[in-house]
């Protein structure tokens, strides 16, 4: 497979921040990329994973883009916010190549050239469901959130998970919001880099040792689920909710309450399709789930796959929850909401704008853990 561009008319490059088989963020992208070769005949994926300075010392995004372009790639996808600077730089050096930066917002902020677009899914909903199932299942009312690094995106998603949890806790389980503990512990990056980040295995362990019985993972890899699985074997009644990848639960099915995941097929199909047919235009795509069936891999950019260990009651509750999110009757980003420092985020009855949600400046009142 060393001759690229020969049989395929439209090779595209995929730069993944983590390993292509991480059962998480990168694998979701990888499989979507493979799918493209079927969905869009003529495309051919050239990929490289572990694109981060720790795994590939001395190697930068522009270097890799140079290489992929020399291999004929006409479009480059970079799947990490960590690549922001590199993608912008590369887009500048290769004006005739199209670039998709996942999870970035250079288009909105106007820093991007016309050949650079942003793509993201509205994971808020996924996280809300995660938080919902967590709060429904938790015995101790203590939910731990294994956070990656702190930025607008992670604040937004963590907050969404909290809102989902708080809704389940107060509205469904009819408990006092004050009794719900929701703690975020940031490791410093999207996955474990020994000696650089905190060790997610350790963090999860200490969560569980301090009585947190549901761990929601916000990082690209599955340590939270692995540890939860171990602890269950030791007879502790704990669960985890992994992230990013539809197949994530397989790591430890018994401990898995479910997984909110990205499905990049719709987004990729749209953007690469346009680029192929010369209809490329700079876009900022923030794609909704397909509310008709959020687990439809053709159409839904965001999904939530319930785990085997999810109780029936919770399943039903989750279904209603999804329904009310779908018909818009329920918008959890609705006031009154305060920031962590007590200042007002949303006044009563006010719902947040996309911009407010995207650029959430702080965690919300009721959440523990650093905001910046």
């Amino acid at each position, binding site marked *: *497979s*060393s001759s690229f561009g020969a049989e395929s008319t439209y090779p595209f490059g995929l730069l993944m921040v983590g390993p292509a088989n991480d059962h998480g963020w990168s694998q979701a992208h990888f499989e979507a990329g493979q799918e493209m070769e079927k969905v869009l005949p003529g495309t051919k994926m*050239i*990929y*490289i*994973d572990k694109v981060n*300075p*720790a795994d*590939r*010392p*001395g*190697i*930068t995004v*522009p*270097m*890799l883009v*140079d*290489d*992929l372009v*020399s*291999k004929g790639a006409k479009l480059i996808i970079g799947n990490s*916010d*960590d690549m922001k*600077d590199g993608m912008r730089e590369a887009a500048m050096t290769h004006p005739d190549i199209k670039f998709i930066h996942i999870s970035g917002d250079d288009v909105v902020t106007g820093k991007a050239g016309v050949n650079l677009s942003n793509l993201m899914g509205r994971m808020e909903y996924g996280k809300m469901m995660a938080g919902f199932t967590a709060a429904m299942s938790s015995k101790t009312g203590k939910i731990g959130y294994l956070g990656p*690094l*702190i*930025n*607008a995106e992670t604040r937004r998603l963590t907050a969404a998970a909290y809102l989902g949890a708080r809704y389940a806790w107060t509205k469904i389980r009819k408990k006092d919001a004050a009794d719900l503990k929701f703690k975020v512990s*940031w490791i*410093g*990056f999207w996955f474990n*880099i020994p*000696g*650089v*980040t905190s060790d997610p295995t350790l963090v999860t362990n200490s969560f569980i040792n301090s009585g947190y019985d549901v761990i929601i993972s916000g990082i690209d890899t599955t340590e939270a689920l692995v540890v939860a699985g171990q602890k269950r074997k030791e007879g502790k009644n704990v669960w985890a909710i992994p992230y990013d990848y539809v197949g994530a639960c397989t790591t430890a099915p018994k401990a898995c309450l479910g997984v909110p995941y990205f499905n990049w097929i719709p987004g990729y199909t749209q953007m690469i399709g346009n680029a192929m047919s010369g209809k490329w235009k700079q876009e900022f795509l923030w794609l909704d789930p397909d509310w008709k069936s959020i687990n439809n891999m053709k159409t839904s950019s965001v999904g939530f796959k319930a785990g085997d260990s999810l109780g029936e009651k919770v399943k039903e509750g989750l279904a209603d929850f999804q329904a009310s999110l779908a018909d818009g009757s329920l918008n959890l980003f609705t006031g009154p909401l305060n920031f962590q420092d007590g200042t007002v985020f949303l006044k009563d009855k006010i719902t947040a704008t996309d911009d407010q949600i995207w650029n959430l*400046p702080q965690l919300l009142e009721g959440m523990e853990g*650093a905001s*910046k």
Partner: protein
Amino acid sequence: MSIILQMRRIVMISVLALSAVSLLLMLLGISPLTIGITLAKGSIFSWLKFNHVLSVWIPLLLCSCGLLFTFRAGLWNIGVEGQVICGAIGATLVLRLDNTGLPPAALLSLALFSSFLAGGLWGASAGLLKTRGGVNEIFGGLGLNFVAQGAVLWLILGPWKRAGMASMSGTDLFPRELWMWVPQGWRVAPAAIVLVIIIFLLTSLILNASQFGLKIKAAGFNPQASRLFGIRPNLICFMAMIIGGGLAGLAGGVQVSCVYHRLIPSISSGYGYLALLVVMLAGYKVAPVPIICLLFACLAAGSIQLPITLQVDSSLSGVIQGALVLSGLLVYGLQQGKRRGH
């Protein structure tokens, strides 16, 4: 030592290492030839890729030059990684200064100078730990590596973090005018290349053709006897550590100002440790170092192609490097054994 023996040695080492690796590959059903071709293609067969090779070669050679000094003084300077990091911090410190009113060129030179300084200080502290604190330089250096790592993490997550963020992605990018100038179609700064070549020439001059170099050698070979020649071994070792650290620090400065344009946690890119292997393989001699650095740089740069085109893991290049060094040591050992006559 005679050229012929040199040649014999080189041939023996490479044959030993390469055949070992090839055997491993064939056992895994991978063709060594394809690997070789891919690595070559990925490193020297295109200008851009060769640029990439150079971007590895420059810091690697700087670190190796530093190590040549410390090895001459008979010291195991394991602290290179930490010294690179400190150099990077030193450079960032300067490059983050705003409204200095200095022209970019001046600011960049200042940054490089401060990186040398910072690295030198870090090297000196290892030297002090050894001479004053009596801490074996291996573990002093090792410990300081971790301390430096801690410092850079703290800076990136603390004082120097991006607005509203706490990420290992590193500090904000420096303004473009503070990127070292790179011509159209190039990917490395010519200035850096010139710099490293000058440094190497200076190193070989000092080590092979200067009173100071001779003193380092004397102090390293036989500290006790060197005192009879009015040399103060401790002082010499200390200075060697400073120079070694300084050059490593310079490598860090280059990484910051030419490659990443910001400070990141793994700024040292493991060049500190790789340089140790380089100098060992060079048998602690000056002349072979730039060539070996180039070879290692080609392996490092070319290794990117392995996963892309062959779905083979990049770490193979590390295996080749390690095998080379190990067989180097083996060959040296065997030859010395022969000379000892048993």
